[in-house]
């Protein structure tokens, strides 16, 4: 299969720490631009340092909203914790009117759904649209039949060009704890059935980008504050990985293309590329099954 990435590469620092933000995204007129962060809410120094890089990149690449992949607030969730672990590190972004669209992680109190800045509107799961993109925010902590029914219905009803799902637990990862095979068992069939293009997850404190699995691109972006150094492992299924420092992802969708770049805490780009929407991708070259023998 011809990959639009060219040869799959293990993500490495593409350049030394830059003086200015190195933006490889095309910034096309009318494009949908967003930030992706996961496992961010520690309130620790690393979260603030990553946030500073995000602000720096945001000056060159003005995005309008941010996907939060869960574990938005670690530990206690007192008002002062929300201040230290969310509003202070992202103050510049909040002041600029950047919309944060959170998913719930296993460290999050489900009552975060009432916290207005997370835009869950009182719900554990929801869907929203930006331009030609439909996002599905899923609560992978508690996939009850009602949520799965809702997801099936909403995916079917989505008239958008792009379908992007995001939630906390990765369906594919090489990290120590391994993929959430049980979550995969219930979500993947719906994603395949309804043609989801891209999935973002956190939980594992590393960065990984998978080659398409059943036609879906999977990203794990779980290192916006925490890090499990050395926790990704080589795999032929991986297109890129980075586990040496914290990271975040910037994305831009224009027409049938999703451009992305992943940046580490030092401001260095560690992965970048462009993905095609599922429906316009060239069909994969598969090994054709032999024709069944004719029966007399």
């Amino acid at each position, binding site marked *: 299969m011809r990959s639009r990435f060219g040869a799959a590469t293990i993500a490495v620092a593409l350049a030394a720490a830059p003086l200015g933000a190195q933006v490889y995204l095309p910034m096309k007129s009318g494009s949908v631009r967003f930030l992706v962060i996961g496992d961010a809410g520690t309130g620790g120094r690393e979260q603030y340092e990553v946030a500073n890089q995000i602000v720096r990149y945001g000056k060159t690449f003005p995005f309008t909203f941010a996907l939060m992949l869960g574990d938005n607030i670690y*530990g*206690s*969730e*007192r*008002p002062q*914790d*929300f201040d230290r672990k969310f509003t202070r590190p992202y103050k510049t972004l909040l002041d600029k009117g950047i919309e944060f669209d959170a998913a719930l*992680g*296993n*460290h999050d*109190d*489900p*009552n975060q*759904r*009432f*916290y*207005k*800045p997370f835009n*869950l*509107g*009182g719900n554990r799961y929801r869907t929203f649209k930006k331009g030609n993109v439909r996002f599905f925010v899923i609560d*992978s*902590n*508690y*996939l*009850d*039949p*009602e949520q799965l029914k809702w997801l099936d219905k909403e995916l079917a009803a989505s008239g958008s060009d792009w379908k992007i799902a995001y939630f906390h*637990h990765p369906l594919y990862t090489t990290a120590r*704890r*391994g993929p*959430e*095979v*049980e*979550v995969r*068992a*219930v979500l993947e069939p719906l994603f395949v059935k309804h043609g989801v293009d891209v999935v973002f997850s956190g939980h594992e404190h590393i960065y990984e980008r998978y080659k398409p699995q059943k036609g879906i691109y999977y990203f794990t972006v779980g290192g916006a504050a925490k890090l499990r150094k050395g926790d990704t492992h080589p795999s032929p299924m991986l297109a890129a990985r980075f586990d040496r420092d914290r990271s975040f992802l910037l994305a831009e969708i224009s027409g049938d293309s999703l451009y992305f770049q992943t940046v580490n805490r030092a401001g260095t780009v560690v992965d970048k590329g462009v993905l095609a929407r599922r429906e316009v991708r060239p069909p994969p070259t598969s090994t054709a099954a032999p024709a069944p023998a004719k029966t007399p």
Partner: protein
Amino acid sequence: MRTFDVRRRILIGAAGAVVAAAGCKKEEAKPAANPTETVFADFAKRVDAYMKLRKTLVDSVGELDPTKSQAEITTHATKLANSIIAARAQAKPGDIFTPELSALVATLIKQEYSRRPDSVQETREDQQEELPAFVPTVNMLYPTTYPLATFPATLLPLLPPLPEQLEYRVVQNYLVLRDIEANVILDVMPNAVPT
């Protein structure tokens, strides 16, 4: 549909456990209603009774709408929790998770676990790893500084449905019934989950 079929087969298999737990008398000539359905219906009634009580308590403390103030969310949760705990001061294990239901559910869970491959079992063990070894009790607040273990996604469809305000959780080998917004543990079922 497939889930339903699996559930039905399991339920039929598990019915024996319920019958034993319920101590059904041999002399009952007429075949009783499906024991599983009876137990689930009784559980639904107990959940309904709690939800009625809860509604009166919510009416007194007020509904919570999305807010920018985390203090407001915390205060509301605390008020609701306190009123639930006060109203259920006499609550004890088994009030909602009756022995009959516990026997049935433990059998369902055991059967479900035995069907899962090693990879799933390992994931479930990993999910428990992050939890402290606390012993959940009725009317206890789930410790807010600890994560909530992800509930096994393929197990949920086998359990009796709950209103959206309530959820099941696994803590060590306990199945826990939790009021989400108030963060109060309403009932516990020990030895329900294989360790």
